[in-house]
């Protein structure tokens, strides 16, 4: 190595250090796209949103699914008897479940424009466990239970009313037995005549 080259070494080293420090504070060449909240188009078929309050548990979406990735999870309540659960690993995002959903005007299962589906430390088990589940299931279940209770109350009330009405009727009938007995034979007599004529 000559003396001239040896002199150049510290000069070039400082050049490199400056370049590296510049690069550290420079704006990034690549973007982290999932932070940006980019809006996709109108019909974009991304992550599912399942609204358990709207769902009626008819399992039409599970039947429409071409890859059978929708499971109907039983809820234990009467109104949505079962709620869809989408296995995200198998879903092909065709959107046919949305087409099949019969709830109006808003669909209970919808494909949204959320497309960031990131899993960290992915293993096969984690992937198979990754599902789209109804977000407001607990609230919906509580509501459904309340509704059921209300319905039961109403039913019981209705039953009571009926019983009362029957009792009232029975009392009333007991008072007016004679006029009813006169009417009945007249009503029954007409159809008997008609059948005779037909024969």
């Amino acid at each position, binding site marked *: 190595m000559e003396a001239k080259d040896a002199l150049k070494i510290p000069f070039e080293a400082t050049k490199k250090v400056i370049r590296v420090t510049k690069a550290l504070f420079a704006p990034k060449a690549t973007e982290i796209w999932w932070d940006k909240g980019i809006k996709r*188009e109108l019909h974009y078929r991304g992550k599912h949103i399942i609204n358990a309050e709207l769902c009626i548990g008819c399992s039409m979406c599970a039947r429409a699914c071409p890859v059978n990735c929708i499971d109907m999870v039983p809820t234990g309540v009467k109104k949505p008897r079962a709620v869809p659960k989408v296995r995200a690993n198998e879903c092909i995002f*065709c959107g046919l479940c949305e087409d099949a959903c019969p709830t109006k005007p808003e669909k209970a299962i919808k494909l949204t424009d959320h497309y960031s589906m990131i899993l960290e430390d992915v293993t096969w088990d984690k992937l198979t466990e990754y599902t789209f589940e109804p977000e407001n299931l607990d609230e919906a279940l509580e509501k459904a239970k309340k509704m059921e209770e209300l319905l039961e109350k109403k039913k019981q009330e209705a039953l009571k009313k009926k019983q009362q009405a029957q009792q009232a009727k029975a009392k009333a009938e007991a008072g007016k037995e004679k006029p009813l007995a006169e009417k009945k034979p007249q009503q029954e007599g007409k159809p008997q005549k008609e059948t005779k004529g037909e024969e």
Partner: protein
Amino acid sequence: MGNSISLAGYTFVVEETKEISGEDLGLLQEKLLQLNWGVQHPASGPMRLKVWVDGDEVVKVDPDIGYVLRLLEKLVEYRTWQNAIVNVERACFIDNFGTMTGYSIAAEKIADVELPKKADYVRTILCEGGRIVSHLIGLGSFVGVMGVHTPMQWALIAREKFLDAFEVYSGQRIATASIVPGGVRFEPTGKFIEKMVSAVDFLEKEFIPRYAEVFIDNPTLKIRSQGIGVVPKEKAIELGLAGPALRASGVASDVRKDYPYAAYGELDFKVVTKEEGDAYARYLVIWEELIESAKIIRQAIEGLPEGEWRTKFPIKVPAGEAYVNVEWARGCFGFHLVSDGGTGPYRLKMRAPSFANLWAMPEMMKNVKLADVPVIFASLYMCHGDIDR
């Protein structure tokens, strides 16, 4: 022993006077060399050509397919009438609208469902969009196999505009699942029409003049592809070629014109034919069809009627069968659909144009130079998903 040629029992005339067959072929190993063109060859795609060469001359070609077999015809039997489209469209992802249209028309024929006019027009727009997308890749890959990759990049830029339009329409760029029995799935919104028009504008004003200036009538390209893989008119019919390859041999066969489906009967377009029948003619047919398709899209958008775009399709279809042909990007695609009165198809047979072209290829590749194999292969404009299904 273990020689696949002798096992198959082929005979070759290597020298004019001497005929060699069977076990004796083993002695000719120095002269006859078997090459594997593919599966890892950049131009072949997921398929293999066994090429026997004598020096630089190709003696025999044997295609070896099945690398992307997905049993689509069988899978359809496990689907309902509506969601079978996701299997049908995957015959070839590049032009997925043509296959979905054919299947839907067949299902509508069996069920005796009448379509609203708007659905027909939207189908026409989408089918032509798919054809353009497919032809762009065909053009790019044809020049690409000769070692020039610029046209592919240009074609992909133009293709991207159409994919954007498809995304606005259906929500996906490639596997759109947008055409179902009983119409089309989504409303053709104003934004979709806008995007489609802008894509066609880009194609006609930017891509076509720029591409035509460089890669059409290009002397180097002509030297490489003119007079190679020539198929005369009679032989093209005999071999059963399909699509642009058939039209390049002078046969004006186009299902859109001969048996109009969707809205093609009401639109004005011409069938592109060439007389030469060589690789360059096939390239030019693809190129001119691209221009023609852009015109069809403009006409269909102008004539787009108002009204419903989807009618109710019954869940259970009465027993019966239908055979429907559609002009797909790569040729005439046949659908034989059988119903047994259930909730889904009983059987679907797909007649694929690329498959027909593939088995015509060994005939065309006899006594050509080894370097011409990729050129003929690319000029036939085949899709591997379509060959295997």
